[in-house]
């Protein structure tokens, strides 16, 4: 079954969607979308370095995404304005990455595959990496759920309950870097944040509690992956954008349904 590339791609897409769901909720609640952009755009630089150093693309992307995220957190603690800081770092990282890739003349590199994902490229080992990464992120989310949620509501409330908000922030950051690294093959670096945010935003009108929002986001994300990859195969469209288009459609539907329920 795993010999069929479409099955592998679909399983990969579902893995990413499931890991992205709870994390995506925190990205929405904490308004970290731009932060996610900075982290994922930096991954292109990681890919270039990985190809130059002849190490795995996953490792390169993970390390650089992590370095980027931790740098941004450290700088914002020192009083830099967050949106400006992210605007500078997100786009610089992408630009530097693209320039770095252009230096790799000896390597035949399909840049589009990294920017938008590549349905054909998900091999068995990729699948293993995706599911291991997804499982790791899910475990972290489940383990730290209450603490993360309390720290998201209010730092003072968290501290008074013996939770260190800084530590929770680091856990989110590490999870984000892992999701970015495993999602590159499926959706590409430009649209990873869409996979985090759109399913969560689509789940919002249907949820009454944080837990149900995360679960519904997972279902919507997985559905988007399945339908998007199917469409990508049938119409020969790029994988990542196709998945995101389906997710955006589901977002519209759920928000219209939500309106009716309120009215």
């Amino acid at each position: 079954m795993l010999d069929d590339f479409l099955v592998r791609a679909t399983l990969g897409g579902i893995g990413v969607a499931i890991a992205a769901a709870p994390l995506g909720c925190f990205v929405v609640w904490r308004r970290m979308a731009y932060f996610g952009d900075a982290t994922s755009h930096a991954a292109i630089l990681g890919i270039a370095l990985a190809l130059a150093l002849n190490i795995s693309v996953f490792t390169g992307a993970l390390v650089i995404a992590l370095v980027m995220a931790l740098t941004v957190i450290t700088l914002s603690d020192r009083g830099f304005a967050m949106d400006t800081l992210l605007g500078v770092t997100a786009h610089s990282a992408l630009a530097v990455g693209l320039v770095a890739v252009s230096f790799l003349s000896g390597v035949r590199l399909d840049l589009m595959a990294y920017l938008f994902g590549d349905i054909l490229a998900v091999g068995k080992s990729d699948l293993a990496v995706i599911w291991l990464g997804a499982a790791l992120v899910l475990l972290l989310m489940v383990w730290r759920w209450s603490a993360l949620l309390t720290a998201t509501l209010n730092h003072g409330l968290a501290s008074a309950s013996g939770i260190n908000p800084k530590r929770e922030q680091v856990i989110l950051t590490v999870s984000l870097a892992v999701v970015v690294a495993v999602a590159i093959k499926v959706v590409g670096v430009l649209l990873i944040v869409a996979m985090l945010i759109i399913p969560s935003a689509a789940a919002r009108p249907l949820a009454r509690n944080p837990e149900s929002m995360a679960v519904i986001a997972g279902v919507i994300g997985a559905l988007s992956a399945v339908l998007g990859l199917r469409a990508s195969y049938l119409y020969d469209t790029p994988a990542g954008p196709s998945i995101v288009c389906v997710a955006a459609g589901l977002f519209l539907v759920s928000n219209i349904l939500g309106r009716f329920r309120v009215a």
Partner: protein
Amino acid sequence: MTLVNIDAMTVQMGGTTALRNVDFSISKGEIVTVVGPNGSGKSTLMRAIIGAIAPNKGRITRSEGLRIGYVPQSLHIDPTLPITVRRFLSLPNRKPREEIETAMARVGADNLLDKQMFTLSGGQFQRTLLARALLEKPDLLILDEPTTGLDQPGSAAFYRLIEDIRTELGTAVLMVSHELHVVMSASDRVICLNGHVCCHGAPDVVASAPEYRALFGSGTQGALALYRHDHDHVHDHAEDHAHAG
């Protein structure tokens, strides 16, 4: 029994000294209020006591197994985060259903349990936060300007509730307040803060201290403090001070 004792604490925040050489203690069942102008380190003091920031110098001693219930100054819940009051009260640890219902009934808000947090009004929100703090079964209740955004009857009702809870449960209460008239009537002790402890003691003693007058001796709140003070006793010197300011 002393719950929290602070000895010569200095806290630096972003290169500036927020608190300098502060001594402080609070005992079982006491209501202590911290007053001071904006930027005087009131919130910093609260955050040091709950353990959110570590002192640069000096030490904080908390009694063994101290349970703190904390009501933060402001808590904005983003509308993108769906959470019912019931679920909110179980964060970070699950609480039994009956305890949640009792706590909400205690603060007079048991009709809110299934409402979404972001739909609550200011007063409903503060009551919910207080209920959450009570669910911790606190020895010490810390409230950082709990009536910000409430109108006068609303905040008067809220402070009465706090006093009732103290009487009923014997919980020590530490609060930051701008409402000096409330401070004067509801506190056992007042600490006047301005980067350091300006003066402290029983409300009427603090009200008549020159340091306090120097900080609050003008404007409406000063007038309220003065009004209250006139009924207690007469300090010619202090009053001259206030009029001059």
